[in-house]
């Protein structure tokens, strides 16, 4: 056995998985691949906060925001090398993909032991990994291992890293280029000006003062109705142009 993958999110169950992974890798002289998946789900900030408040309430141990660093430190302590992998996407799918890409021999994952409505809502990542994995999976249940020896390492790491919210990673600020900024500004506001022209002219012609003009029939429809439709058509066109230019 050469590589052991451990998936973790910083909650209690995954900390047990770290311990087990380092223990097994140490026994076989294998490398630990520590994987942390950041979820890519379009949740509102308040939704994320509600979730983490509720999840933390299920835990006996506090949530730990730097599990990869913890895995590395714990590995070092036991002479096991740990490779850190940070990824983004749907948790189960990403874990399985990384395991496949790196040719991992075994997956170790924690199980929160969630039940009832909570399980209906969140599902069980460990269960779905077991169900879909082509390689052996070891599930470490929450509370099945003594985690007290992790505490000093956690304090040490927490001391040197700034604690962050689990779902709100800091984005690295880019570099401000004045030329690029001006170009984008001209482009954005140029399109906005063009669209404003279509929109406000259309609106003007359909007001009471200019209604004679808007009432002129073209191809069976009053000019005013065509103007309204052109606001839609113009909007769709400008949207497409903007997105093509912005490289999306």
């Amino acid at each position, binding site marked *: 056995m050469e590589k052991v993958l451990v998936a973790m999110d910083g909650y209690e169950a995954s900390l047990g998985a770290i311990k087990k992974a380092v223990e097994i890798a140490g026994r076989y002289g294998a490398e630990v691949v520590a994987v942390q998946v950041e979820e890519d*789900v*379009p949740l*509102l*900030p*308040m*939704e994320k906060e*509600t*979730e983490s*408040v*509720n999840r*933390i309430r299920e835990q006996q141990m506090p949530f730990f925001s730097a599990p990869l660093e913890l895995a590395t430190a714990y590995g070092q302590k036991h002479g096991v090398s740990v490779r850190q992998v940070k990824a983004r*996407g*749907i948790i*189960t*799918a*990403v874990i*399985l993909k990384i395991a496949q890409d790196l040719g991992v021999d075994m997956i170790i994952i924690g199980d929160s032991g969630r039940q009832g409505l909570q399980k*209906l*809502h969140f599902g*069980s*990542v460990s269960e*779905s*990994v077991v*169900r*879909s994995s082509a390689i052996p999976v070891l599930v470490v249940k929450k509370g099945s291992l003594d985690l007290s020896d992790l505490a000093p390492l956690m304090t040490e790491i927490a001391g040197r890293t700034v604690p962050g919210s689990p779902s*709100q990673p800091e*984005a690295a*600020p*880019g*570099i*401000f280029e004045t030329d*690029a*900024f001006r170009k984008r*500004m001209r482009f*954005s506001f140029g399109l*906005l000006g063009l*669209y*404003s022209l279509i*929109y406000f002219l*259309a*609106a003007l012609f*359909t*007001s*009471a*003062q*200019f*209604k004679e003009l808007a*009432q002129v029939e073209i191809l069976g429809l009053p000019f*005013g*109705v065509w103007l*309204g439709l052109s*606001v*839609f058509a113009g*909007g769709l066109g400008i*949207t497409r142009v*903007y*997105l093509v230019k*912005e*490289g*999306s």
Partner: protein
Amino acid sequence: MENPIAFTVVVLSMFLAFFVSWYSRRWTRTTAEFYVAGGKIPWRINAMAMLGDYCSAASFLGVAGAIALGGIDSWWLAVGFFAAWIVVLLVLAGPLKNAGKFTVGDLLSARFDGKTVRILAMLATVILCTLYLVPQMVGAGHLFQLLLGWDYITTVLVTGSLMGAYVVLGGMRGTTYNQAIQGVMLMGAMLLVLVLVTALHFGGNPIKILAAAREAVPPSVAVGAASQVLQASPPEAGPASASGAIAAVKQLMPEAPSAITPGVGLKDVWNQMSLVLGLFFGVVGLPHILIRFYTVRDARAARKSAEATIIGLAVFYIAVMLVGLGGMLVLYPTLLEMLAAGKTGAATNLTVPLLGSLMGGQVLLGVIVAGALAAMLSTSAGLLISATTSLAHDLYAGVVKPSSTDRERLIFAKTCAGILAVIAIILAVYLKNQNVAVLVGMAFGIAASTFAPALTAAVWWKRLTREGLIAGLSVGLVVSLLYTFAKYAGMASVLGLPVLINPALYSLPAATGAMILASYLTSDRGKVAEFMATAHSR
């Protein structure tokens, strides 16, 4: 209960929506196929949620109802509701995602830290969200009055409390997925009505709706002739009497404009301009829409969600126009009778459900009410959540108790959601007879005069100063509120200026002017370099 089957359909579909949204969170964690899971799903879901968030009672009931009564002129509301999204995309979508984290206050105080900017942003957010909540409650009141036969005040109290309870008790979880599902529901219901009305009454050809509308005088114009016409063609006779009534009115008033003649609603150029200005720049300032841009991973995904929403809205609002005109033609005597009896509020907001009930009985009525309810619930949830996020984050965590835990903030947020719902219910009782789309238009006007100039300047104008921002936000808020309340108080003019249908024509230039003037007089530009680099990074 008047419509037990329809009511059952509504309850079942709501239950289904809640169940699916509760369940879909697990899907986002436990799907095993990587390529299915790849990058596209989050922004697509977000786009659907935006659609649900944005299309409220105003779009679903109000615009179609206003078109059915007054003809094509009322479509301008929908044209504006659509066009505003182009402004959001071009001006704000990318920078907003890059620079913001939780609230509009967050984004502004990323450039100008300190309490004043944050509190002001919080205040504007809460006022806007509450005023926008009112039309949702008015719509719900009329809708359930129709469905259950209760009187308006009871209905508003019950539905309003339920909407508040929904957010307080469970709505902060699964909101996004629920909004996405409700977005699909309201879109599906509107398209279904369009397909049915076209197939059953216009030989399957939507162009025929426009052609027939050319020969009809809009009910709001024809109401004077109502008593003569209704004797010959009573509403009880169904659609058959509609064409008779339309022809009879046309004969009585041969010179009257048709339903697709622009200018019938006779908005003069100032009212029209004020309205379209408020609508155009409104969405850039609507907190419950802006907050949705924080949910996707990067600026690119934010723009992609905006585009998908724009395409969805184009389809939706063109369908709304056709359904409104179709509804007028099919329900003509009914609408005339309601107008003649003074039931303006019901007539202007209930065309779509009435049309459904006529075409497909209680089942279709149920489907449509479910669609409308989806529109209201998803919007109300979005509004309450963005208001309370701002209260919890900007006020409570930012000023009152910076050391608060997540849990304390959540409790504070839920309490506030309850209080705001109560305020909105009280206002909804008072504003019973207003068209919900017009009420929403007012909120747009306030948004266009506060956050729209403030946010645009914050992310694009380096010369903006702290005092400029504060001046712009305050002046915009005060002037727009002044003219909004003057409108509802029935005043003809304030400070020598006539009160218009929307405050934006005065308040937007006033806010912008104050912001520019104060910026040139002062020098504190905030953390401009750092902020611009974050906002405009790729």
